[in-house]
């Protein structure tokens, strides 16, 4: 029983780490209608921005997280404006493949500048806090709080600001939004910047918990994609729910099967959920 409870807590915590980039991925999909696979590399780029600010400039972690948001956001917007937008005429598949290729380019630029070595943030590593048979890491609690604050901020931005409302309008119906005076191209760029920025924060949170290297974002790309698909592509609350479910299922897998199968089990969950509910957990009906 203790093992199950511990796995549940571990799952919630790893789900939180997946939720932030999954939010970004889903937001981009909602407005641009293509899966942007460059998010793994953008998460890496964001993590390295944060690392430079924290380790090289000696600034505190919150500033580093903000730098990750700005750095990855700018990189994502530049990528969309400079390359992916031009592939749009080829359809969503062309843009998806283009994003995969651009992700590799970003990853290799990071590798060229920073090398392959693991890099750690300037942060002491604390022992877990033990509550009876359960233990939780202080950094993981910090990450949990940070991720929840970020998710709340994204929700507030989308619900309460005019820019957020315009983004939802473009996601719902771009033609109608245009008639109402919203510039879909501008909104698309803002969405990509915010979505990419969120991925950058996601990469940083993973880095704060472990260490970073040029593949840090690439390693979670599949799980993030799985979380977004599971939640219903384009659904913001769905991405969060999907991330938690994937995180928890992957941890439970370890109790029953060899941990080597945990990623496969994540995909089996997707298969089962989508068979029962093709639009995902919280997604709208496929159009």
């Amino acid at each position, binding site marked *: 029983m203790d*093992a199950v409870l*511990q*796995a549940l807590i*571990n799952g919630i*915590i*790893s789900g939180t*780490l997946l939720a932030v980039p999954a939010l970004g991925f889903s937001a981009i999909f909602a407005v641009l209608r293509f899966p942007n696979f460059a998010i793994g590399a953008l998460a890496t780029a964001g993590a390295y921005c944060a690392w430079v600010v924290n380790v090289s400039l000696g600034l505190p972690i919150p500033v580093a997280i903000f730098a990750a948001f700005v750095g990855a956001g700018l990189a994502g917007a530049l990528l969309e404006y400079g390359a992916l937008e031009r592939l749009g005429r080829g359809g969503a598949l062309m843009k998806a493949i283009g994003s995969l290729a651009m992700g590799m380019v970003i990853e290799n630029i990071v*590798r060229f500048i920073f*090398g*392959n*070595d*693991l*890099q*750690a943030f300037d942060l*002491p*590593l*604390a*022992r*877990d806090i*033990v509550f009876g048979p359960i*233990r939780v*890491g202080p950094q993981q609690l910090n990450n949990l709080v940070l991720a929840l604050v970020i998710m709340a901020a994204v929700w507030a931005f989308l619900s309460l600001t005019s820019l957020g409302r315009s983004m939802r309008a473009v996601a719902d119906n771009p033609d109608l939004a245009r008639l109402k005076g919203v510039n879909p191209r501008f909104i698309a760029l803002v969405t990509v910047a915010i979505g990419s920025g969120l991925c950058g924060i996601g990469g940083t949170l*993973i880095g704060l*918990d*472990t*260490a970073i*290297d*040029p*593949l*840090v974002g690439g*390693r*979670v790309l599949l799980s993030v994609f799985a979380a977004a698909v599971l939640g219903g592509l384009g659904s913001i609350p769905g991405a969060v729910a999907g991330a938690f479910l994937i995180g928890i299922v992957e*941890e439970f897998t*370890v*109790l029953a099967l*060899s*941990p*080597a*199968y*945990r*990623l496969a089990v994540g995909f089996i969950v997707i298969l089962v959920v989508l068979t029962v509910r093709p639009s995902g957990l919280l997604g709208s009906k496929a159009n």
Partner: protein
Amino acid sequence: MKIDFTRRSFLGTSMLAAGTVAMPGILRAQEGPIKLGTLTPLTGSGGAYGPVMAETVKKAAAEINKAGGVLGRELVIISEDDQTNPEAGLRAARKLIDVDKVSAIMGTWASSVTTAVAPVCWQSGVFLTTASGADSITKLPHQGFIIRTQPNTTLQGRKFGEFALELGAKNVAFVSPQTPFTDSQYAELKRAVEAAGGKTSILIYDDKKTTLRTEVDQALRGKPDAIVMGGYTTDTAVLVRDLYRANYKGKLLGFGYAVNKQLVDALPPDVSEGIVTLSPSAAEGTNGYKHVVKLLGIDSPDTYSCQIYDHVNLVSLAMAAGKGTTGAVIKDNVRKIAQGGGEKVDNAVDGLKLVAAGTKIDYDGASGPCDFTDIGDIQDAQFRYEQIKGGKIVLLKIA
């Protein structure tokens, strides 16, 4: 335009053409340089080692070229990146073989890469020298086209078991990602520990996870007093962090290629404190080793740089001894210059002079004696035992 084509000019031209065709192949081939390839991990998990390995071969080849080359021909080194990834490694190997037409590929590092690349090499008659340890590699039907300077993982597994016992462990857990050598390594570790009355357990994890908390919980459930970590640097860093957080106080043992300076830099000093490692040792103190120190301009070159230095020397000397430049010539002659007595040499420049003079040589290199079994395994190797103390890797012993 009228062409004068007399009987005399026809005969002259024909004789010239016939003479060219009849010329021994070896003479015709002497026109160009000898191409050799390196296939090392410039990126990926092995990225800490590959660039220096490739650099070592270029510098060693430059020395050989300066002294007149092999069979009077220049060595040209073409370096490719296997990305520590079998698919990328295979693509790069095909390019080296099909486009560059190399005679030998040197320095494959990850066992998964070597396993993928090996069949293409022996089917194309290209000689493969590797620093990979998985037992399965030399058991492949390679017809003699593979040698390795890295001790196989059966030996490494046994050494790990013996070392854990030496540290006082009775209950040893092997925690590792799935690699081509996981099973053989664990089997030998288990044999060594159980022979001394201890017990063992194994846990395989997914090396792409950013956290291994639940895996650590699982491994600690058996209350091991020593954990042998079988992963590469990136996932080992995640594992060590999570073991520290879980307040694990037992012994931690890892491979030298995973528990290295990169890992030490990525972890706070108190987290990595006390981890012990073992790795095949370079032949420190020998002239071959000192030569690599001088060649690279660094104080303590790693074992892989020393191994690939031996690869290029062995390949060059075998070609000289066999008076040919093909993979088959290297295969047939490499043991003639590496073992079985003769004048001891530790570098190709000296060795090439002796071979040219018809003297029998016995190459002992920077990584060790370089004597190979029939299937291509190294016969003898020493291990280097080290421990992290105060954020530095300190040598315990070489044995």
